[in-house]
């Protein structure tokens, strides 16, 4: 199993963030390699993603099913490959910012550092997998360039969400309305090629999670123009 987690602070209320996340249309384009998705029923959707590994790219269909949800706080989805063997989960976690919010962010960051054991304990493994592994690489390279530019552009706002939580969360300096958003992704590739898939995907999951949560923050805070 391989995983990636990222936490950001967002200048919006937890309720607004929750409503935003519940509308896939709002953020689908931020999923690495996103091509399209289709809502099957209240709990189920089918996603087509395009993953790049170096010069190879492949489209993969995934079934995403809502496993549990605690409105305003947490939603967990299972991810199952339809065209490839892989399983996983994706989790959104929201908490209010502030003193306790800062703690939550820092706790989330620690959880991210302790990923493997935490994940095994939670028994909600796997995710996008091999699909993402491949597609993510080329796409992420591209996105990283944009993201780096965006970060430079907004560095004056000093709201960087470096690995494991923003500087403001760690210092507890954040003030005002806000939400701490954590996105966690776990993937377990299946089939005989699993060792290769894991090897290729491992370095990509954390950047994918970071990119995803950062883009959501940028959109909600209206800073996405910084990418240009």
């Amino acid at each position, binding site marked *: 199993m391989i995983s990636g987690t990222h936490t950001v602070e967002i200048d919006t209320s937890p309720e607004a963030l929750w409503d935003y996340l519940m509308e896939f249309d709002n953020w689908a384009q931020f999923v690495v390699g996103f091509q399209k998705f289709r809502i099957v029923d209240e709990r189920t959707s089918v996603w087509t993603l395009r993953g790049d590994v*170096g010069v190879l790219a492949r489209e993969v269909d995934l079934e995403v099913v809502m496993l549990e949800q605690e409105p305003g706080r947490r939603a967990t989805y299972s991810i199952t490959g339809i065209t490839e*063997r892989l399983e996983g989960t994706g989790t959104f976690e929201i908490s209010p910012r502030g003193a306790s919010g800062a703690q939550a962010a820092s706790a989330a960051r620690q959880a991210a550092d302790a990923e493997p054991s935490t994940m095994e304990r939670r028994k909600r493994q796997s995710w996008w997998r091999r699909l993402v592994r491949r597609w993510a690489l080329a796409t992420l390279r591209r996105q990283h360039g944009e993201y780096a530019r965006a970060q430079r552009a907004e560095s004056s706002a000093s709201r960087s969400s470096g690995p494991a939580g923003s500087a403001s969360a760690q210092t507890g300096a954040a003030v005002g309305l806000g939400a701490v958003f954590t996105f966690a992704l776990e993937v377990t590739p299946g089939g005989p090629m699993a060792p290769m898939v894991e090897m290729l995907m491992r370095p990509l999951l954390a950047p994918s999670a970071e990119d995803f949560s950062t883009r959501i923050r940028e959109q909600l805070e209206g800073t996405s123009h910084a990418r240009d």
Partner: protein
Amino acid sequence: MPETDVIIIGSGAAGLTAALTAAGADLEVTVLEKSGLIGGTSAVSGGSIWAPVNRWLLKQGGHDSREDALAYLEAITLGNGDPDLLVAFTDNVNPMLEFVVKHTGIEFEVNPDHPDYQPHLPGAHTGGRTIQGGLFDSSQLPEPLRDRLRKSSSGVPITRLEVDTWGMDTLENWDWTLLADRMSKGIVGMGSALIGELLHGAVQRGAVVRTAAPARELVRDTAGRVCGVAVDGESGTRDILHARRGVVLASGGFEWNPDFVQRFLGRPMVAPASPPANTGDGLAMSIAIGAGLGNMSEAWWGPMIQPTGDSYDNAPLFRPTSSLRTLPGGLIVNARGRRFVNEAMNYNDMAKALANFDPVAYSYPNQPCWLVFDERFRKSYSVATCTPDSPTPNWMATASTLAELARTVGIDPDGLEHQVREFNSHAVRGEDPEFHRGESVYDTYRGDARVIPNRTLRPLEEGPYYAVPLLLGCLGTKGGPLTDASGQVIDIWGTPIPGLFACGNVAASAFGTGYPGAGATLAAGMTFGYLAGQALAAS
């Protein structure tokens, strides 16, 4: 004006062998590569090299002779090959290999079992002419070349001999933990390894390799000698690079240039398996200065699968089907549901049947066509990257009955049912009276040894059934400027063009319509690259 002794256009095996040879003779060499990655089709290839009378075979006690080789080459080219080129190839392929071994870290092994592609022809051998290299550790390459070494679509660091041992279509038998470990260390195999070795050898001898540097035009002096190249720089500039000795065209085929394909290839080729930078630039440049052309309607043909959604270098990825077609439990039919060829035939000649023309219907009756197989096949072999335990991908149609499958993809249902009944009635005895599948030593090099009495044949059994479209494709085209036996390009009147050489798929192939055996395309490209490098050193 920037100057060098020799400019090589293209960094495939042909170009890099020319570069290694010229650099080995202390010439100053610059290789211009259009793509951001080094190696072209050669890097995505199996890396096999076809070398009659090679020393690795002889060392094992095998036998071969120059006479056999020349007789076979004459037969496989239908007597239309330029005898000077065939002799030049036969007499220089082994010196070229010795040179490459001496100046790189390559270690070859002979594949004693790989038969020539038309093993019944005079002079053909049933094994031993194909040699294969090992792995290459790309961390040996200096930065930034290390990251610019092209890898195949799978990128799997495996040797050709391991593929043969573990089974090309049984991916579940491969040692993926070992392969992942190799990959994490930057180790590459097959064509990438061959390119890595040639590149390493060439740069160690001082060759400069520029990527993202497409050559656009040949420059000639007032006497008509090719003395330079106009090349695009990364910043959008066009510069002239001067060549004191000459220029070697090694820019691959024109298979990714739809206009050239339509103008020159006599067959409706839609599925090139090479990287997409091969757009016939060298051909255009040579036409522009009056080169004579040959073999323009030919390619290294092959029937390809296109797993929809897979792409390589931002172009659709077409995958060869060398061994898939030979596996028992499958057959290939056209829209009438009829077989039209021995499915286990070598890809170059088999694919020509995909392009048969029906003058009455005025159409290509075998386009489209499908590989149809049963559930046992699906559960036994990988189809492209779809392993037996993977979910059935959307590019693989499936249905519980043959008639339903036929309707789904557009085959005549009665025709298919009738064909399968007929096929099964013979396959049960391991026979194919119509197309003789599994009778030649070439056919039985692949197949499934567990199936007897004919490892390429058994009846289609229970459903569900599956169908995958096969497209007429190629590994690369092989028509272009004509050359003499030293690789020098000759003009439309038969006179050598001073300072211009061509090797590999950019040039008119000495092998005409034929494909002598596994590795013949790399072997010819490298041999004429070696000869061009030598001629430039002597010039």
